């Protein structure tokens, strides 16, 4: 990524999605949805790997081009390979033994122009985060109980 691109870099997020044995059902739908987001320039995929954790805790990391998971041509074209070996170990800490997980790292391209405008206006990011769905559900339930 060139320095000029990092000036306009949007917020970067990641997810680790676990696929327990016997539950996985790969139809290509995930790849198709991801490709739509990339094609629409909503996100840019910075990294995409598949991790497996053996029953003994041993971790295997597969690069997406070695997995044959769906058709990810648009996403693959822009992969920056952001994650380092130590990141793979840190991310796999969330996995249960005997499972496979997909790791997706993406840039929120849609947010970059707003972030740049905020910076130009003298704004400084002092906090950010994600509100867990569970917290929202708990809050709604508490509201309903109190209504």
């Amino acid at each position, binding site marked *: 990524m060139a320095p000029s691109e990092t000036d306009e870099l949007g917020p970067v997020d990641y997810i680790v999605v676990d696929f327990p044995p016997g539950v996985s059902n790969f139809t290509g739908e995930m790849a198709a949805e991801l490709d739509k987001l990339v094609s629409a320039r909503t996100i840019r995929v910075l990294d995409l790997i598949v991790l497996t954790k053996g029953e003994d805790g041993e971790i295997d990391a597969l690069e997406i081009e070695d997995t044959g998971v769906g058709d990810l041509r648009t996403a693959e074209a822009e992969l920056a390979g952001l*994650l380092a070996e130590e990141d793979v170990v840190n*991310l796999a800490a969330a*996995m249960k033994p005997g499972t496979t997980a997909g790791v997706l790292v993406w840039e929120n391209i849609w947010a970059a122009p707003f972030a740049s405008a905020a910076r130009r206006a003298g704004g400084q990011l002092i906090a950010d985060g994600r509100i867990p*769905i569970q917290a929202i559900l708990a809050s709604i339930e508490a509201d309903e109980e109190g209504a």
Partner: protein
Amino acid sequence: MPIGRMRRGRRGVVGAPVARTAAVAGSAAVVAHGVGRRHDRRDDRRDDRGDRREDRRDRR
């Protein structure tokens, strides 16, 4: 652990071992419904404020 050569010997970005997130219990539809209800309540409060303002104006 077989891992791409480009990933070796580089500085990481994640920072620390990642804690497992609890499984999502509710569907997005449930959340949207709840958020919608809150929106309705906010509209109700706005209407109430408007009514009070009109009452005050009428009294004057």
